[in-house]
């Protein structure tokens, strides 16, 4: 069976005045229909760029320098802007982090929802309105008729994020990319939004790519996990296996550094130093200056992402394979 989404050997570069930097290197990913994938990493790891690359929205001076992205059997990385616009916002939709910024403050919710639908379907205003109402009910918004007449500033953050999810659902997409959808929200609202996304994916057999830095959220929502560091995938596998038994020293450190795993008051496991900027990636393994397992080979040879156990890919010299 063909995959719903396949990213093959993707490189993304940003052309700067003094040479270009590589924001993504050798990204390989597959996603099946109905699957939920978590993309994890710290800021600057390249997780958002991966999301933008999929919908071909990398803004200049960035560009895809190598590789291809296939969606539903069609190579979308090579499509013209015109053709891509038909897929983006229709079959693949995106939810962004900040619900305050994503909605246009000068248009009513109804106008924004109907406009989105009419951009993708030949549909009358009243039919579009019906679909909009239907989707608002689906995301459990109370009194949806009234909401269509309201402006974004009249709604709370949680309500706005629900509306954005409703907008993402308008065209019945087969893939939703959610870039830090709950980072700007409070915990109780975060739990509700995550429940909602999970239920929607299951009821409509939608796929989800969840981009976040929060390992706890990823571990509760997704089936597969991809950990990124300095523009590369360093570990991937089934979420519960990776969380329970991380292989790459970075993943291990990341999980251990979360408060709540060890006893309160004890010293947290910490990864020394910080992620290198993309202009100064150290030779060999990008993680080597912070790694406690480092040996000579790590400084000289860049480790390949290899299958170290069934379904588990790790890019580390020190992790022994099967």
């Amino acid at each position, binding site marked *: 069976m063909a995959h719903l989404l396949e990213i093959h050997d993707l490189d993304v570069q940003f052309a700067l005045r003094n040479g270009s930097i590589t924001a993504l290197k050798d990204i390989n990913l597959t996603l099946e229909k109905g699957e939920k994938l978590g993309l994890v990493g710290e800021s600057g790891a390249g997780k958002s760029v991966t999301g933008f690359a999929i919908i071909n929205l990398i803004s200049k001076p960035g560009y895809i320098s190598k590789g291809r992205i296939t969606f539903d059997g069609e190579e979308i990385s090579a499509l013209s802007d015109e053709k891509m616009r038909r897929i983006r916002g229709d079959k693949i939709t995106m939810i962004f982090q900040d619900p305050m910024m994503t909605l246009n403050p000068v248009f009513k919710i109804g106008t924004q929802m109907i406009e989105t639908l009419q951009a993708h379907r030949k549909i009358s205003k009243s039919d579009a309105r019906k679909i909009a109402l239907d989707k608002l009910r689906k995301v459990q918004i109370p009194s949806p008729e009234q909401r269509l007449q309201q402006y974004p500033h009249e709604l709370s953050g949680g309500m706005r994020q629900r509306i954005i999810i409703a907008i993402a659902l308008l065209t019945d997409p087969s893939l939703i990319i959610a870039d830090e959808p709950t980072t700007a929200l409070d915990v109780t609202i975060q739990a509700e939004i995550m429940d909602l996304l999970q239920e929607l994916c299951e009821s409509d057999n939608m796929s989800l790519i969840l981009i976040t830095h929060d390992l706890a959220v990823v571990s509760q929502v997704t089936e597969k996990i991809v950990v990124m560091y300095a523009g590369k995938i360093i570990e991937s596998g089934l979420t519960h296996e990776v969380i329970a038994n991380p292989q790459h020293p970075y993943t291990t450190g990341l999980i251990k550094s979360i408060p709540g795993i060890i006893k*309160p008051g004890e010293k947290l496991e910490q990864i020394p130093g*910080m992620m290198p900027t993309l202009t100064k990636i150290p030779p060999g393994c990008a993680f080597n200056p912070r790694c406690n397992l480092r040996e000579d080979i790590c400084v000289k040879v860049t480790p390949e992402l290899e299958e170290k156990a069934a379904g588990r890919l790790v890019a580390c010299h020190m992790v022994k394979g099967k």
Partner: protein
Amino acid sequence: MSYGKRKVVTKEILKKMATPILKIDNIVKHFDISGGFLESIKFRNGRFKLEKTTVKAVNNVDLSINKGETLSVVGESGCGKSTLARLVLGIHTPNSGKISYRGTRIDNLSHRQMLPFRKKMQMIFQDPYASLNPRKTVQRTLEEPLRFHNPSMATEQINEKISQVMEQVGVDPAWTKRFPHEFSGGQRQRISIARGLILDPELIVADEPVSALDVSIQAQILNLLMETGKQRNLTYLFITHDLSVVRHISTRVAVMYLGTLCEVATAETLFTQPRHPYTRALLSAIPRVGETRAKHIKLKGEVPTPVHLPTGCVFHERCVYADKRCIAEVPLLNTLESGAHVACHAVEENRAMD
């Protein structure tokens, strides 16, 4: 000295030791947001009226912090936790209520009278990109408070102090000539902490000090705060919304909702036996690594605005246990057997059972 007199003296010393380092007494802070004269004219029932709009940010909060403990105030955005922190430091003046530092009332002092207390209380802010002056070198940022509070201090002494504090927070003292933009987020937060420590304070108010940082850096900063806390016997008032951080670092926890305290307990008690319905909902919503999604308690509706506070218990509109009494009567903090203080009629009447 007679025996009786000595006894009185001992008693006084004991009393002094038992006095909390900071005591907040029934404090209230309302902000007037009605704007100018024209903006406050409202049309009601066929006639024009002047109406004031006030945000009731903090309402009748009682809290005390003991020497050497870490008290965390948690709550969702808009619950008044940051306002409370600012009230403590005198950045806002309260509408009513008292704040005492080691038994001395400080909320009604003039700026000059407040000076000696400012040395004892320092603040660390959330965003290390915004809280450091971009036009000042690290040296200037750190020496300014020293020179201001100790005008007689010699330059060598100042430099010595700066390098000592820089070393403690893990930034190379040779970098004092640099500007904030030359540092990463984690290093900047270390410099903010250095600025907080430079006057050897007793109490540090930290408002979301790790929220803007990445996970691996967050662990570094939390470790640093815990270590320096132990070394210097610091008292922390920690403001945050991140409950897993709270559990890790706190001695006691106070949960706030809409400007009111719902529950105050030791971290251990609060996380193992939360009693207030809001605390329970809040704790059940924390995502935990490696656990499949447990059913969390869903709250009805949304947080009301602090402009129009609900009558009675501020939480009643969203609470499943709410009854007539909750709508009419404001619950007060009651001490339970576990030592926790809970403001809830349902808990008091044993209606809020699992």
